[in-house]
């Protein structure tokens, strides 16, 4: 590593967490969802989070995305400690910087594909045109369809369009292919790959699909609320070549 690389490294870190824990109080019992997570995600990195069900992946993703707050520990985005932000600060952070994609698409059923995207572009500073975002996910010809008129894969592509339309700095995806067949899943992953490459969007993907880890810069393995293993890929496999 060169010196310039090192000076860059401090600014090139997207997320940094320090001893993040999360404890859910469920009546009498406490559920330790996260038991001290320290990670650094680099700017523009494509990272995959894997691990058994209930190991805390979603919890971490939600905390990174400002949907939730850690019980203890600190979360930094760039140089800001987002774990110190209040609800209003978190809202602004999400609005400005984060795009979310979920396993069940979570489109607003009463809005068309285009309107679902508009919902986000309307409150962003420098968004793409909704039609452009939909064209990026190959849904340009379905802009006036309601979610109920779309297949699961198509809905997820609209969800991706909605997430990327505001040109977010990070894209957080919780099992984006979980509800899709492999071919459709690969299509979605290709789109994420392209967005990551072309727009330089830091992308974090939770998946149960070990194959997907091959297309990432890094694979993080989760177990019982901790990171138990990290694997850096020297060569990434294109999404197109994946199969599961």
């Amino acid at each position, binding site marked *: 590593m060169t010196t310039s690389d090192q000076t860059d490294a401090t600014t090139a870190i997207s997320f940094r967490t320090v001893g993040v824990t999360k404890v859910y109080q469920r009546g009498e019992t406490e559920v330790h969802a996260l038991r001290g997570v320290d990670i650094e995600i680099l700017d523009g990195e494509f990272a995959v989070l894997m691990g058994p069900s209930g190991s805390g992946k979603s919890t971490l993703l*939600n905390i990174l*995305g400002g*949907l*939730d707050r850690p019980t203890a520990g600190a979360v930094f985005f760039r140089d800001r400690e987002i774990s110190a932000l209040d*609800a*209003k600060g978190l*809202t*602004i*952070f*999400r*609005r*400005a910087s*984060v*795009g*979310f994609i*979920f396993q*069940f698409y*979570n489109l*607003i*059923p*009463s*809005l068309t594909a285009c*309107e*679902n995207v*508009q*919902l*986000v572009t*309307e*409150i*962003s500073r420098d968004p793409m045109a909704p039609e452009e975002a939909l064209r990026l996910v190959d849904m340009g010809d379905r802009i006036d369809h309601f979610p109920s008129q779309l297949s699961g894969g198509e809905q997820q592509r609209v969800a991706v369009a*909605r997430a990327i339309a*505001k040109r977010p700095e990070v894209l957080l995806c919780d099992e984006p292919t979980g509800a899709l067949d492999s071919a459709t899943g690969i299509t979605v992953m290709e789109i994420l790959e392209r967005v990551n490459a072309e727009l330089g969007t830091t992308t974090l993907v939770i998946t149960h699909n070990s194959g997907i880890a091959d297309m990432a810069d890094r694979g993080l393995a989760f177990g019982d609320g901790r990171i138990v293993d990290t694997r850096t890929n020297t060569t990434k496999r294109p999404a197109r070549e994946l199969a599961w």
Partner: protein
Amino acid sequence: MTAINRKLLRDLGRMRGQAVAIALVIAGGVATLVTALGTISSLEDTRTAFYQRYRFAHIFARARRAPQHLAPRIADIPGVMRTQTRIAHDVLVDVAGLAEPARGRLLSLPTDGRPALNDIVVRTGRGLRTGHVDEVIVNVRFAEANDLVAGDTVSANINGKRRRLRIVGTALSPEFVYAISPGEVVPDNRRFGVLWMSRTALEAAFDLKSAFNDVSLALRRDAVAEDVVARLDDLLEPFGGTGGYSRREHVSDAFLRSELEQLRLMARVLPPIFLGVAAFLLNIVVARLVETEREQIGILKAFGYSNAAIGWTYLKLVLAIVLAGVVSGWILGAWMGHGMTGLYADYFGFPFLRYTMAPSVFAIAGAVGILAAAGGALFAVRRATRLAPAVAMQPPPPTIYGRSSGGGFLQTFVPQMRIRPATRMLLRHIARWPARSLLTCAGMAFAVALLVSSLFFFDAIDEMMDAFFSRTQRQDVTISFTEPRSENVLYEVAALPGVLAAELYRAVPVRLRHGHHSRLVALTGIDEGADLSRLVDVHDAPVALPPAGLVLTSSLAKLLGAGAGSTIDVEVLEGSRPTRTLPVGAVVEEFVGTAAYLSRGALTELMRESPAASGAHLLVDPLTQRRLFQQLKATPLVQSVSVQGTTLATFRAIVDETMGAMASFYVLFASMIAIGVVYNAGRLSLSERARELASLRVLGFTLGEIAYVLLGELALLTLLALPLGCLLGYGIAAYLTASFDTELMRLPLVILPATYGYSMLVVIAATTVTSLVVARRLARLDLVAVLKARE
């Protein structure tokens, strides 16, 4: 339009049925408020304008015969602005086509120019011409009731002579907005007429040249009525003055005030019921909406929509519903207010109607509606903003049902009872949302209560009339004499055709004083053991006539601040005008009228006169009634005849007409509430259980069976609501009777079983129809879609 607003509109479109149902309830509340406030302000404005334009007096007094030169001295009383003397007399009138003799009030009009006070408005025909002493103008109501038009004639027994009077016109007067004859409790337009004649004609007829027996005063703004009345009484005393009184005691004005009081009561009681129900409905509907859209809310938050923006979106949805309700309430209220004011104008004799719907009325009603309803929904909206984004993203955990609520308690009492799973489902659903079930039940109970407490007015008035006419005043006919007669008159009266029984009474005008309270009334002397006109309290228990003490009706006792045992200063305003202090021997509960009684013996003694009678109560053979009336019409000693049965019948007709319109409004309103509550409860239940019901269908349940699961819940809640509503209605009626306590009447708290029955039937009908509308959706349940959709 922004995407989030579009979502809002589509949400609204999807729940339009519920939105309309809620808006309907809000409209009901706003409409009642607008109607009541608008009618009150219209009537008040009309009254003020009428009184002002036609110079309604402030003080009224009568005397036997006062010289005209007293008039300037009356005008000199400090505080008096204007005076008008005239001649007034009550006479018996014979109208062609009317079997019974009618009661007429003769009033003189000045021969030169308009009266300074109590002017009349000629509606048809023309005014009186000087020199034509047989010309008469009658009040509009009397003419209409008897089909009299200009050119017709009526006969009147004037000062012992039968005179034919030619009607030249009909008129209205601020003195007779509510035209009721003295001593009566209900108006009877057929048998009571006001006859205006020229002063010259009446001066000649009653031998009152350069004299008067009636005077009205208008006061300056700063005058004290009591002081003026005291000075006036002093001036009139030597001339047989019977005591001055102010507008407060003027019967027409008092009735008008009592009617306005009733309207105010309506404005106080009804709208809160509606708005309370609307607030509750909005709360549960929006709460449900937030629940079903929690993931959407989560997504919005995830993408950076602020809590305020999300709260505002849902609030806008609430406001849209509320505004729709408020605006339709405005329209409905304006329409009903117009109708009601028209009814009142018909009922009262106003020559014109100021239908003033002040913008403030709409503003007040609108603001009250918005505040109440939106306030109710705020709770649910706050829940939307409070949802933590991460939590909102997860589907709600499966609803936790309790085992115990599945009718288990029933089985502990009846162990062998088998409860079908479907029944368990519906019982558990009720128990799962106890607050909502309770509120749904309460909403329907309010619908029942609204009906009970408004239809109760019919029962109350019937009871009031029944108490008055069948229990207290049981005579068929009451006659009064032009002058007090000796007791021997009883033989004359008893000999009249068809008279089965007769009782004499003596009535004298008195002023009663107790502390600083004072009141002009007729003190009636009745005989011990009198059977026709009895003293009975509301519980039908006869009241013994104390030998020397006064008996006061409860409302009079209240006006005087007196009770049994108090001592009252009695100032007789007739004959030798004795004054005496008498104890109150008993207070009798009566619903109508302010009356005072004394034993006739004691009254004779008080008056220092030989036993005398002012009139008689008669029990009459109905078959010979016609002949009796004919004879009475021709008997000069008779001044007035009142016939109980006919009075009652005409009053019923009036009540049915005015209150009938009101009653149909209430039925409409109560149905609106019931529909609003049931429709919303049904739709909510359906949306929560669509999956469950669809699963049952997949398992092979019939439509009827799943309808049972869905509607059984509503039926059960309705069943609970009915008795609750009756109780609540009784409570509201009790509040109304306690509040509606004017000087003129009190309402008895009587609710007939039929009223409860009818109220419940209306609500059951509304509930059934609404349930069927909801049930129709069950048939359209898309089994595949429902099962595929994620919870």
